[in-house]
């Protein structure tokens, strides 16, 4: 294994000082001269025509205007589209004429102060004429009531391979499970917000705490019929996203409002508005049937899944495909079939959410794997070991090669560290009338960008300044994970320059080179560090070439050492800054490169989680006592940040397993649109998380790295559910496993 100078070491984050001081300016902390505040009026009815009575609201001092559908450009868009080569159903508008979910945008209050916005909002009266509501997947499938058009079916996909009939004939058992996963809220602690203004040259400038500046630019260009060149979108500080800010939303509202009023506009949301009025993780209902042989070989699997797409098309195609993709890259299964359908419902539109489809998919399939192991009487880890993929396996449906897949190694290492065999065999001996104990395991796979599916490239401009510092212009969006710091270490490695001398930019459509897809799909560390490595190599060549040309030193004699170049057999040393100066002075050229980079692989990342639970059989409360997360990380760039991702990922997905669910009634009302009723894990619920990193060093990857941020938010969920089923002898598959669901299952079991 290659020894790195910077990569793999623990560095403190550069941006954490100002965050610890409370000095970081998030958008809500920023103001502009003459700025208007904007607050959306969201529908309180799930499907209705409406009239807005704004008379009283407009009398509130400081209210500037209240915009409705009549006032905005009538250009439909789809917020999921992130480049021009993708087209889904375009059915979203800045403001809507008819409300299609509780939380739909029906008006926009613009006022000189937040206070005036709030007061006006209290005084707006809405008269609704209700229309029939599709509040669940069952109703959606019946097609009696239509959200829009001729059918609620928004997208359908069949994909598979192998000889299904033959496999089934050979099987000893077909193990079937039906299960469901909830709609969940991303819960970035910073609620949604955006700001826009028209600059001194008449261009529209938008500040986006989002993940896709170029997509926001494209959407605004279409909506406002303005050229790209006149729209600049700048990534600003962001207080978390988790996919919730991946699809442009308030960026578009603020952009349009600023353009219409020619004034700066900041549109903000409160928690409830963020919960109901943006996007949620798609809920799913799945049926999984796995054909197994007594000796533990999986022969075939059929997965049939319905997706709750919500009121607009948004990510219907993406969620079905992202979910499907992950079915084929974890186990060696000779034949598989997937049938997925996304439906419109009168609910908050679906959107990207950490690990896109992976949590929903593995939630049911990994519980089904345990079920199959039980049926054939095999240890669930042994059963998995018999069927997991091997390094360099092909993707059976034509996706990119799996690369150096180390999932088996993860599982083996985890079994040992967790004392799996002993716990699995004996933990239930502690059970008593009140408490039951169990352990569970789950595996999961994830990708590294879009290679194999969508355009996947980025561009970097890397500049060495005469002061010896480096600027890396690249369009990335820091979401809080430490993206900038990770890339700084890769740049340090590539340039052989101390990290504190390197600046990585955040995305800005005017200043940073074009990037194909934004900060999504676990592509950033994998793709951007590849680009940075390539740029760094080229820049180092340029450094040597400069000394060759100017100082007439043979390049073979030159080597870098922490921001300097030394000459073999001589005590001569040049700093990077001196070389930059030499190059400009003698060669009339800055010391910089601009490169285009495309990855040519997309190895799978893997994680295996082990969980130990204590279940209160009288209250249904679950205590996760231990969690072990083993990751095929490829190569950790900064272990402190990697641990932070894994620990945070566990918090995220244990919520989906145990308590997080947006609950809707039959009229489409959200019953728990506040944090007092929507329960995420707090510090008292959070288990200790042990971590093992398996550094497999995928050869096709820059520095050997693989993804972790999304990957970490998958396996702990089904591992906990499997542990609960182990403890109780139940077959629970409906997430989240709330106390009520656990008690109900125990009562039914008798």
């Amino acid at each position: 294994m290659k020894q790195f100078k910077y990569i793999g070491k623990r560095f403190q984050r550069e941006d954490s000082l100002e965050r610890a001081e409370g000095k970081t300016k998030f958008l809500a902390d920023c103001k502009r001269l003459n700025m208007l505040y904007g607050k959306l009026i969201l529908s309180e009815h799930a499907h209705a025509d409406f009239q807005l009575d704004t008379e009283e609201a407009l009398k509130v001092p400081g209210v500037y205007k209240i915009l409705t559908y009549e006032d905005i450009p009538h250009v439909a868009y789809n917020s999921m589209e992130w480049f021009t080569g993708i087209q889904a159903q375009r059915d979203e508008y800045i403001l809507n004429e008819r409300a299609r979910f509780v939380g739909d945008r029906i008006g926009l209050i613009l006022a000189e102060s937040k206070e005036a916005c709030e007061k006006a909002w209290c005084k707006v009266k809405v008269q609704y004429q209700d229309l029939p509501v599709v509040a669940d997947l069952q109703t959606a499938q019946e097609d009696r009531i239509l959200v829009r058009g001729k059918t609620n079916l928004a997208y359908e996909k069949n994909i598979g391979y192998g000889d299904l009939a033959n496999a089934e004939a050979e099987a000893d058992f077909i193990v079937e499970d039906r299960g469901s996963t909830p709609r969940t809220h991303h819960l970035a602690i910073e609620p949604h917000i955006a700001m826009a203004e028209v600059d001194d040259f008449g261009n529209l400038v938008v500040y986006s705490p989002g993940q896709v500046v170029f997509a926001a630019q494209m959407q605004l260009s279409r909506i406002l019929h303005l050229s790209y060149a006149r729209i600049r979108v700048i990534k600003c500080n962001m207080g978390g996203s988790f996919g919730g800010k991946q699809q442009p939303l308030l960026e578009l509202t603020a952009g349009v409002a600023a353009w219409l009023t020619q004034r700066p506009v900041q549109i903000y949301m409160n928690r409830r508005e963020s919960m109901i009025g943006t996007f949620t993780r798609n809920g799913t209902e799945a049926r999984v049937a796995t054909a197994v042989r007594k000796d533990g070989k999986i022969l075939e699997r059929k997965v049939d899944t319905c997706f709750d797409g919500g009121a607009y098309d948004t990510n219907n195609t993406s969620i079905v495909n992202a979910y499907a993709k992950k079915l084929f890259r974890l186990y060696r299964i000779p034949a598989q079939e997937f049938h997925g359908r996304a439906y419109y419902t009168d609910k908050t539109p679906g959107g990207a959410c950490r690990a896109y489809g992976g949590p929903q998919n593995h939630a049911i399939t990994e519980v089904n794997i345990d079920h199959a192991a039980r049926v054939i009487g095999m240890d669930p880890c042994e059963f998995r070991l018999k069927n997991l993929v091997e390094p360099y396996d092909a993707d059976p449906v034509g996706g990119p090669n799996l690369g150096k897949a180390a999932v088996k190694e993860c599982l083996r290492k985890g079994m040992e560290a967790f004392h799996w065999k002993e716990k699995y065999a004996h933990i239930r001996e502690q059970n008593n009338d009140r408490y039951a104990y169990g352990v569970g395991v789950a595996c999961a796979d994830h990708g590294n960008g879009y290679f194999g599916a969508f355009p996947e490239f980025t561009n970097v401009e890397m500049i060495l300044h005469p002061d010896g510092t480096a600027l890396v212009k690249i369009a990335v969006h820091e979401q809080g994970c430490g993206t900038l710091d990770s890339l700084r270490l890769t740049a340090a490695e590539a340039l052989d320059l101390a990290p504190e001398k390197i600046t990585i930019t955040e995305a800005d459509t005017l200043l940073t080179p074009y990037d194909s897809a934004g900060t999504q799909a676990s592509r950033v560390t994998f793709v951007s560090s590849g680009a940075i490595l390539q740029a760094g190599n080229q820049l180092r060549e340029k450094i040597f070439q400069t000394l060759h040309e100017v100082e007439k030193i043979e390049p073979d004699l030159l080597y870098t050492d922490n921001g300097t170049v030394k000459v073999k057999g001589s005590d001569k040393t040049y700093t990077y800054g001196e070389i930059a100066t030499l190059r400009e002075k003698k060669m009339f050229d800055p010391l910089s490169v601009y490169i285009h980079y495309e990855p040519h692989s997309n190895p799978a990342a893997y994680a295996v989680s082990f969980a130990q639970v204590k279940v209160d059989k009288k209250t249904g409360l679950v205590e996760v006592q231990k969690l072990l997360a083993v990751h095929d990380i490829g190569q950790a760039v900064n272990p402190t940040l990697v641990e932070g991702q894994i620990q945070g990922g566990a918090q995220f997905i244990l919520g989906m397993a145990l308590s997080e669910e947006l609950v809707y009634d039959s009229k489409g009302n959200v019953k728990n649109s506040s944090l007092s009723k929507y329960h995420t894990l707090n510090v008292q619920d959070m288990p200790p998380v042990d971590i093992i990193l398996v550094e497999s060093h995928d050869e096709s990857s820059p520095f050997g790295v693989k993804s972790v941020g999304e990957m970490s938010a998958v396996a702990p969920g089904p591992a906990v559910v499997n542990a609960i089923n182990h403890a109780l002898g139940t077959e629970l598959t409906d997430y989240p496993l709330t106390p009520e669901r656990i008690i109900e299952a125990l009562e039914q079991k008798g």
Partner: protein
Amino acid sequence: MMFTAPADEKELQAALSQADERTYLIAGGTDLLIHLQNRKETDCSFIDLTKVKELQGIREEKDWIDIGALVTMTELCASPLVKEELRALYLAAYHLGSEQIRNRATLGGAIANASQSSDCSVVLFAYGALVEIFSAQGERRKVPMDQFIKGREKTCLDRGEAVSRILIPRQERSSMFGKVGARKAVTIAKINCAMDFRMEEGLIQKASIYLGAVGVKPVEARLLENYFQGKSFAEIALQDVQELGKEEVEKAIPTRPSRFYKRVAVQGLLEDMIGALP
């Protein structure tokens, strides 16, 4: 909007006499400000009670423990008197909300909002507490807890009245509180229970037991009370208690869908409470 912060009862009297339908009394604000947001109320005025000196402090009297309406959950937890003598109230305060909320939430506010799952209410019902109400006329009336709370978010407070103090009768007692929420901490009770036993020579002379969150206001658990009457703690058979608890829940909410869960949860709750008795 108007804001006044009377410093004593006399100033409070003046403020109360000017209260209209848009005047709200605020102490910790932990419930009120959320209610106002939800109800889209604007242009309201506030009487801040937190500076009224007569509404503060815990007083130990011969027959009563007299707690000011402004006493916060944190103050209740820090009071040795409450911890020793009013175990149920201590536990309710200890497990209420989060640190930030406990620092603000007051005992007066907890009952004046009459939330159906209020942990403090169920305890004060069990204790047979009296609520002292102060009026704009400067009068004081004392109302028993079960008359003070009339229903879901309904109390007998009239406009121009404020809860001033809560009086808990003293006796040779052993009391206990427990709740089951959606999670370990910072949780609203799905079901809660308070028990107050008058003890005499190691025997339960009188049991007062209430269940909360199984109706619009705390419900007296008579079957349980009868069971405990005359027994020593050693004589309590957990299974019998759990069986009766289940009956109480079915009696209280015979048709609500939540009964399926609560009739099991009450058994766990009672097990924990019985286990924690001395």
